[in-house]
């Protein structure tokens, strides 16, 4: 019994050490812990195992020393998957582990990060959904000014409007204009999916403002919207392409249009709303990485550079393409500008709560 207990405790200790361990750093450090406060020059982040010829000749920022945590979203969600794809590749450009934390949602992640120590070890992965929640008055913080943006990594993705092929055939609907005409003849008859408090809701309101007189019902997950469409609970799907593309390929679902100013590279045969004559906002998905407000500028700059390398990495680009998203890099200041403009756009469009 004592031996068994000792064995169990030993295993627990070893597992704890493994969980808390970080990669061996190859760079040497200057004698004193100069840290970010004294403006130590930031070096370019190196891949985990730099080649034998690489040498460290410049003084190094004393960061990072241990694992970086990224607060994501609910486990298994699209945001969570994107966060994990990002973390997997980011780990190539920082000398420590990058761990994604699942939370109960993006707002929760943002709040946790905002309140964390500004030491660069707790970051937040979020989308414009936090900004929309802020505009609607559902948060106790200013989503644009309460933290420091490190970079934007994804812009685009977008929303497609789809219906079942047999429904379209039966009602002679071949385009978005046909759909608008149908809904005007049958107001509020069709049920369209949206997602309350999310960017999909913005997209849905855009379609409705173009004249589509359909009844919106909130379904938060794109996969569940697809099942609802196929099962007949809803008539129109608004959401990402990744969840529905296989059904478009089999012919079960027909895509009417893409909400955007130009055609999506994922569906070059699908017309966009601008070319169809509808001047609508594209309700783009913008993924960004942020950190607590008072994080030293040197650390922000370091992470910005590491993120830039991640976004340019072919592995990350491919992972995004498989989720029908496009890699896009914007630095700290530009991301702040993008998010500020987006928030103002939402306020001007009347999304305030």
């Amino acid at each position, binding site marked *: 019994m004592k031996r068994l207990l000792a064995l169990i405790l030993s295993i627990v200790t070893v597992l704890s050490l493994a969980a808390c361990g970080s990669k061996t750093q190859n760079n040497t450090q200057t004698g004193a812990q100069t840290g970010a406060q004294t403006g130590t020059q930031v070096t370019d982040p190196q891949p985990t195992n730099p080649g034998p010829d690489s040498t460290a000749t410049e003084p190094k920022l004393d960061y990072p020393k241990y694992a970086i945590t990224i607060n994501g979203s609910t*486990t298994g969600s699209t945001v969570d998957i994107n966060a994990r794809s990002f973390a997997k590749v980011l780990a190539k450009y920082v000398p420590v582990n990058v*761990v994604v934390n699942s939370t109960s949602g993006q707002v929760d992640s943002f709040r946790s990060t905002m309140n964390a120590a500004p030491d660069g070890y707790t970051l937040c992965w979020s989308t414009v959904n936090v900004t929309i929640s802020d505009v609607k008055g559902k948060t106790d913080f200013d989503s644009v000014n309460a933290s420091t943006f490190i970079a934007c990594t994804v812009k685009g993705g977008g929303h497609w409007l789809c219906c079942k092929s047999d429904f379209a055939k039966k009602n002679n609907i071949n385009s978005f204009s046909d759909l608008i005409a149908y809904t005007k003849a049958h107001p509020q008859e069709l049920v369209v999916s949206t997602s309350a408090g999310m960017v999909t809701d913005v997209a849905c309101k855009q379609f409705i403002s173009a004249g589509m007189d359909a009844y919106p019902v909130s379904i938060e997950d794109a996969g569940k919207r697809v099942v609802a469409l196929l099962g007949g609970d809803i008539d129109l799907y608004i959401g990402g392409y990744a969840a529905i593309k296989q059904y478009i390929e089999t012919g079960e679902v027909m895509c009417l249009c893409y909400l955007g100013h130009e055609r999506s590279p994922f569906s070059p045969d699908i017309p966009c709303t601008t070319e169809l004559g509808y001047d609508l906002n594209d309700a783009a998905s913008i993924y960004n990485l942020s950190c607590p407000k008072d994080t030293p500028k040197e650390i922000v700059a370091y992470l910005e550079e590491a993120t830039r390398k991640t976004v340019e990495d072919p592995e990350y680009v491919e992972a995004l393409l498989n989720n029908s998203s496009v890699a896009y890099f914007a630095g700290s200041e530009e991301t702040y500008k993008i998010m500020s403009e987006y928030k103002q756009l939402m306020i001007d469009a009347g999304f305030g709560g």
Partner: protein
Amino acid sequence: MSAFQYFGHALATIFTTPQYLFFMLLFTALGILLGALPGINVNLSLILVLPLTYAMQTESAMVVLLSCYIGALSGGLISAVALNIPGTSSSIATCFDGHPLAKQGKAGQAVGVGILTSFVGGSLSYALLLLLAPMMAKVALKFGYWEYFAVSFFSITMIIGIAGDDVFRGVLGAALGMAIAMTGSDPVMMVNRYNFGFHALDGGVTLTALMCGIFAVPELLKLAETRDDPDVEVTKLEKFRGFGISAKDYLSRWKNILRSTVIGTYTGILPGIGASSASLLSYMTAKNSSKHPETFGTGDIDGIIASETANNACMGGAMIPMLALGVPGSSAAAILMSALSLHNVQPGPLVFANSANLIYFIFAICFVVNFFMLVLERGVLTGYLKALTAPPRIVMVIVMLMCVCGAYSSRSSFLDLYVFAIFGTLGFFLQKGGIPAGPIILGYILSSLCELNFVRAYAISRGNVMAVFHRPIAAVFMVVAILSLANSVRKTIKADKARKAAETDLASNG
């Protein structure tokens, strides 16, 4: 190639690749260990191993994740039986008969039967998965929001059946669980409720923190309460052989086994219902079908068989919408799907055409890992149970530590530790007052499902509540639920009258 050829090829690949066998052995054992620890549920187990798979090939990643998943799912029964603390929410129903058996010194038999029936339920479910996956996916599409509401409403009425002798207190517990579930943002319109101005509560109360608190803290406080009581003895563990049940005895319960497999598999096919609902539905159906329903809750083996067969069969069912529709049938399946996405595999209707090798490889992994689970879990069972017979003051401290870690790790929030402590203490006093923990947790789980689906169905029907009776499947479940509720109320009133009559007779004779 036909399905069987793909499957045969996959099996051959597994058995001729030592790396896969080694990963299965290692990660199944890890999964069992993690699942058996209160506070570390299936989802957390998967999240812990997910980063290990980043650098692996897709096949190896699937071996690791599925081994951990199947191990953790089955491991939850060990703490449910031995400690009355479910290792996973799907093992709640196992506590009802498992722990009473453990108190009788038959913990080994209870867990042994649970392991065997987990293997059988899983195997039958994977066989259905292999043969009928694309066809069974169509079942998921037949269920709309009214059907989901009806199933979850029916499950809520089943809670009355597990309330024990005092139905009123059981219903009160379920109502409390439902009230707790309403804390935070509502599931459809994201309106904050009952957060008392604390935005930290916007995400609501997590199941892990609540379950750990409600089950574990009262056990610790009871222990503290009885520490100086010389009449309280540590239960001795009876010896047992094999899985604690003869083959003849086990096979004589074939109706329960098959029925539980079907309930578990079909519940798993419906995205969002979950293994906890599956095991509850199966348990209650077994109780209602039993010739001796009064023995359920006192240590009836059929209760353990119903619960564990269903929750493992649910895993096979949950794979069907995940692979064939691209919609995860459970939160654990969502993690598996995210792992597939990270390896650039897109589940959906074309996956059988585009990635048939991988899909049948996944099926083959399930079968082989299920066997590993059977052998490993039985192998460590004796030692594990002996460890649990250590002085309770040592065991419970370790259990508490695990529960605290589990409660915190679900979303890395200190709020969950407060939830653990507050609801744990509340649970202790509720149990003193005769309100058991099971209905509270089941009320919490089922009410979220019920509300979400009702609000959506109500919106789609434009406020026409009677639309639920216009859909055949939903109507059947609603009628059965209403009849079941009425029957439970009738039985309670009858039992109450009989008790009062007996008391009156006693008083007049005495």
